[in-house]
């Protein structure tokens, strides 16, 4: 029995899976590289990433009853699938490190500087395991709340910052040239790659395959719109020099927000909204990493992998956040290479292989549909299913 989520939930997951890191850490990194033009770079990255997500949708649509690892198995056999799964596991491991940097440095550096880092890791572990255990539907619902939180956070920040906004700070544009601005967008494309790989795992659980392209594009564009407000405000209020000074530049924005004379210092409210979004991202990362790990070991139920995977991810996350320098090394260099190379490599490889072996995929998909083993064959939708019994393990037809 498998669960499906609505297209709205799918869009919400996309938005939550990119928002937290992109608004602060990514902008700081890009500001150090290209100064004022971070908002242009963010827009370019979002548009480029739409191409990536379209490619993923094309790949999954060729074999809608299975995820990208199932498709790999059909294409070149079990070992190839395991190789892809291993690459994806490494991808999600690194992405969890990046998520932990975002999550821990927001909370620890600005709110609880005396709390040890492991406390934050443990909380992420508990919440992540909880979400991953109850599956994509629960996370999808959480993601919907996360989108409202994102909206509330954006509105609160905008209200508190507009009085200090100076549009001339955004000028001149393309100060370091168009090429540099496009090149700097790689940092944000790496964030979107995290979403693309998540989509490659969860897309078969989304209802209405004919809506996949539209909903994923809409998710990317809405997410991009929510995010791009931040670099515009960061440059217009803080200036690019100040934005580039900080690891978590969005927190400097939040700490400077003030509505009128009396409403200020409300960053605790904003961080609560932020936390809902990033906790959704943590759950999603656990779910994807567990699913991928279950494919490596050929398990039918991904839930058996949640604990070991969560332990590995948490251990790595702690190791990363323990040292700020190490964290920044991963964030600004290693992560970009890992993220982009794996995401682009897997996407291109399956896109090309799939185009040569379309018939094989179609035949296998038909078989799955006939046997009722694909995730899309389930008519039970998120609105009617109980989350407790939703064993949305990897697509059983390949086990």
């Amino acid at each position, binding site marked *: 029995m498998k669960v499906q989520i609505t297209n709205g939930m799918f869009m919400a997951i996309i938005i939550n899976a990119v928002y937290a890191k992109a608004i602060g850490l990514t902008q700081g990194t890009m500001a150090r590289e290209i100064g004022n033009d971070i908002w242009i770079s963010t827009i370019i990255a979002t548009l480029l990433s739409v191409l990536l997500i379209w490619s993923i949708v094309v790949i999954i649509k060729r074999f809608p009853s299975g995820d990208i690892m199932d498709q790999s198995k059909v294409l070149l056999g079990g070992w190839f699938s395991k190789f892809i799964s291993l690459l994806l596991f490494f991808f999600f491991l690194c992405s969890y490190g990046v998520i932990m940097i975002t999550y821990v440095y927001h909370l620890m*550096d*600005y709110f*609880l*500087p*005396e*709390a*040890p880092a492991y*406390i*934050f890791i*443990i*909380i992420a572990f*508990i*919440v992540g395991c*909880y979400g991953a255990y109850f599956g994509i539907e629960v996370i999808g619902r959480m993601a919907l709340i996360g989108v409202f939180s994102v909206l509330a956070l954006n509105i609160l920040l905008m209200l508190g910052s507009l009085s*200090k906004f100076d549009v*001339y700070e955004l*000028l*001149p544009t393309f*100060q370091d040239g168009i090429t540099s601005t496009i090149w700097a967008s790689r940092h944000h494309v790496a964030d979107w790659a995290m979403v693309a790989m998540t989509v490659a795992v969860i897309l078969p659980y989304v209802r209405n395959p004919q809506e996949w392209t539209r909903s994923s594009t809409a998710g990317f564009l809405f997410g991009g719109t929510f995010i791009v407000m931040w670099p515009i405000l960061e440059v217009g209020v*803080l*200036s690019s*020099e*100040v934005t580039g*000074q900080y690891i978590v530049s969005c927190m*400097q924005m939040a*700490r*400077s927000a*003030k509505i009128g*004379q009396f409403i*200020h*210092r409300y960053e605790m409210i904003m961080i609560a909204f932020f936390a809902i979004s990033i906790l959704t991202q943590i759950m999603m990362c656990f779910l994807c990493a567990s699913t991928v790990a279950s494919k490596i070991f050929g398990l039918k139920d991904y839930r058996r992998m949640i604990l070991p995977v969560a332990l590995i991810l948490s251990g790595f996350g702690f190791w990363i956040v323990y040292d700020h320098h190490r964290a920044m090394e991963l964030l600004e260099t290693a992560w970009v290479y890992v993220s982009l190379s794996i995401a682009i490599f897997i996407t291109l490889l399956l896109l090309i292989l799939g185009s040569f072996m379309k018939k094989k995929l179609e035949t296998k998909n038909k078989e799955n549909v006939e046997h009722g083993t694909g995730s899309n064959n389930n008519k039970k939708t998120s609105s009617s299913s109980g989350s407790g019994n939703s064993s949305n393990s990897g697509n059983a037809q390949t086990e």
Partner: protein
Amino acid sequence: MRKKVKFILILSVLVTLLSGCLGKTEINDLGIVMAVGLDKGEEEGSIKVTAQIVRPADARGSTGAPSGQTGEPIWSITASGDSIFEAMRHLGRHSSRRIYWAHNFAVVINEDLAKEGISDIIDFFTRNHQLRMQTLVAVTPDPASEVVSTMTGIEVIPGQAINDLFLFNSLTAAAPQSEIIDLQKTYLNESSQPVLARLSLNTHGISNKEPTSEPTIKQIELAGAGVFKNDKLVGTVKPEDTIGLLFFLENAKSAAVVTPCPDNPEQSMSVELKTANFQVTPTYNNNQVGFDTKLKAVVQLVEAGCPFSISDEKQVKQIEKQIEENLKGKIEKIVELAQKEYKSDFLELGETFKNRYPGEWKKIVANWEDEFTQATLNSKVEVKLTSAALLYLPTKPRNEEEVHR
């Protein structure tokens, strides 16, 4: 098995919910700082930090009477150290409460210290998670320790009184509203230089218990601006010249301008700026940097030491011309101070030039200081006197002829 699950569940909930309590400090264990003063320490290279800490029992609002019985809503302490952080930690030696900086209203820096450089101050106050970006920063010719320890203003807490001085600084146009964020922005900028508000202690207060003909109580007042070059204070702007600075940096709306009466120069008239639209347009002709400034202001006459009626067009034109000259003089004076006297681009003209001529900027940025000091200025001021507030006729005794007319 169920017991184990329950135990893990309870533990998980507790860990999640109680994590916010880590590092907690009860509010009655906190010494909440309202203002900080920074002076040179007695020993060479040391720094003296003075903290104005609120005494909650004696700093009640209107609903509760003071119960601390000390009569002082604040407690000021000072300590020295080789660095700001060390001096702040030394404050803890004689404070029974943990010093808490998150509610600090103002950072006041003594000018002698500022002349030696404030890069460490900028770094410290922008690096620390407790300190806010909207905290006001000012320089003072007086000992900063004295400034932050002085009971001033109508507020119970003097730190808040300093903060509130800046709420209406556009009315007085006597100092810019300089916050930590502004200081950090201009310090990090490749061409702009920091400019901070200047506070001074002057005897303006009169005791209500023992009234005297002359003021005897020292009060903090806005006293112009301190101009920096990189991180060093290089000069000051007088309060009467600050209006020119505010046109460039903030908004001088509602500022007052005094001008002699057209027919009787011994008497004066006061006008208030109702709107002020100020624009700076950079020019670059024959490799010469220039700036055209244009101020369009609408003013209202608020006081006339000589008879004045808004219906007297000749008099209105004359006053408009006088105000135009006055404001043009203020603008030219501040630019001259920046270019010739201090050689510091605290008016952010480089940024304006860069926005308009990004390509040319790259060529001259390395030599900006010279380019800036040699830049030409062409200022235009257009003033419209559109109102004389409530009065229409001149304030003067009517003779019989006028009454019958």
